[in-house]
């Protein structure tokens, strides 16, 4: 009920006469929720910490940028292709890396994202063509107003949360959680663990690519250093941890919280805000190691199971 009210409320916000800044901020939050939600689908549910998520975001950005600037393709088609390309890349990347455990998976994915950046940076020079434009970046056609991205971002956010919600309750979600808890036991219980992980990885990559495309169009100018920035991955990780890793609404809470804190502090403390944000993150993680949503959930579980003992 609350969720429906908020949803309807958010749908009419652009007509409420709010400032351009406010609309932009909300659209930004939506897209961060989307990205964090994507990261959460693989890493949150299975515990495989993906440090290369930005790779798919960057690939998506570039596919949209190339299609729109050089191919004059329409926006919606471009972002869809972005998603598909990202998901298709995720398949050969995921098959070998998702056999690795723990830090090894993290390092492999980090290397993948960094590798993609280097390929786009150096491809033109090496091949002697003008395709990716190397470090100069690509300029996209000027896009519509912020309201447009507000609704696109809103739609993507709803879809990503919806998918996470569905996964959590589906058979697929049980497999992901079983992998998270005890992968070997899951395999012995009939779960095709590799296939399940690759599926989650590809879903995550698809939407990261999609969001990458949207943001590229919004920014109208991208360079490899911008869209393959490791900090984007890290922000997804931090937002997931804050909100509650592996929960459906964790990314919503984490991404909203951190984006708003950033904005508020950035305005009043332009020089020291990163220190303050760091401090806030440390406090939240210390007090609520399972994140905001995770802590709330644990409280419920404890209350529910107490009478049994």
């Amino acid at each position, binding site marked *: 009920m609350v969720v429906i009210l908020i949803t309807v409320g958010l749908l009419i916000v652009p007509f409420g006469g709010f400032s351009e800044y406010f609309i932009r901020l909300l659209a930004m939050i939506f897209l961060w929720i989307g990205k964090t939600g994507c990261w959460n689908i693989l890493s949150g549910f299975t515990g495989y910490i993906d440090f290369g998520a930005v790779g798919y975001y960057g690939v998506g950005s570039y596919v949209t940028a190339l299609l729109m600037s050089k191919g004059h393709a329409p926006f919606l088609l471009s972002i869809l292709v972005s998603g598909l390309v990202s998901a298709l890349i995720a398949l050969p990347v995921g098959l070998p890396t998702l056999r690795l455990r723990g830090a090894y998976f993290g390092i492999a994915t980090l290397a993948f994202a960094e590798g993609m950046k280097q390929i786009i940076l150096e491809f033109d020079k090496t091949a002697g063509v003008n395709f990716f434009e190397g470090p100069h970046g690509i300029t996209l056609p000027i896009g519509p107003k912020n309201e447009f991205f507000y609704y696109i971002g809103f739609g993507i956010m709803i879809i990503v949360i919806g998918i996470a919600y569905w996964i959590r309750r589906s058979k697929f979600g*049980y497999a992901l959680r079983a992998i*998270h*808890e005890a992968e*070997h036991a899951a*395999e012995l*219980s*009939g779960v095709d663990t590799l296939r399940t992980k690759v599926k989650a990885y590809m879903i995550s990559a698809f939407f990261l690519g999609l969001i990458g495309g949207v943001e590229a169009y919004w920014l109208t100018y991208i360079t490899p250093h911008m869209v393959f920035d490791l900090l984007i991955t890290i922000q997804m990780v931090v937002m997931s941890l804050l909100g509650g890793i592996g929960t459906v609404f964790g990314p919503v809470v984490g991404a909203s919280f951190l984006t708003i804190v950033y904005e508020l502090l950035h305005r009043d403390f332009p020089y020291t805000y990163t220190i303050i944000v760091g401090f806030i993150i440390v406090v939240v993680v210390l007090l609520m190691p399972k994140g905001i949503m995770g802590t709330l959930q644990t409280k419920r579980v404890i209350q529910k199971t107490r009478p*049994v003992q």
Partner: protein
Amino acid sequence: MGLLEGRNLTKYFGALAAVNSVDFSVEKGEILGMIGPNGAGKSTLFNVIMGVYKPDRGEVVLKGKTVSGLKPHKICRMGIAKTSQIVQPFAQMSVLENVLVGGLYGRNLSFTNATREAEEILELVDLGGLKEMASGSITVPHRRRLELARAIATGADIILLDENMAGLNPTEIEEVLKLLRKIRNQGKTLIVVEHIMRVVMGISDRIIVLNYGEKIAEGTPSEVANDEKVIQAYLGEKVCFV
């Protein structure tokens, strides 16, 4: 031909043959005991059967079909399940959900059917009252029953029990033995690896003895207990000092 057969199974770790040319066969409804000193290759043999390791030589044949070389989840769906020596519950999931995973994936059941089955199985292993508990917060004897419940839920005809009774006290062991007999009477086939002699001797129809990866004896519990080679493997060679 048996329900499950191992033919000339061999698995090397480097130069060490952890399992060496082992043949075995189990019939439907049988309880086969597997004993041997530490490092005899019992757990490795289980892992070879389950597809965790690929045998270097030989094959595992289930219902006339070669299954060695398949991945564990495939073998599980074909009808073999295993409980681990070290219990591995899906700790954050409830007891019921743990069993549910077995039904959902081992047998490809729908949610409603898997839930109903899971509840029945939990009643069978006497965990019905704990089904809402997080499986990470139940006691070790309960976790061992949970492992067994999950294995049954996969619909496997053959259940491999790798030291399912380690760490239990005599009363708890007695209960598990009763449970195992009940499961066998439902038509399941059990292969039991156990260190506690009384347990294996009491429950098995037939026993295989492994030592240094090789099968050194096979027979009824009393035959095996009186076998010269088995006594040697456990107690060492008789040495005359006179």
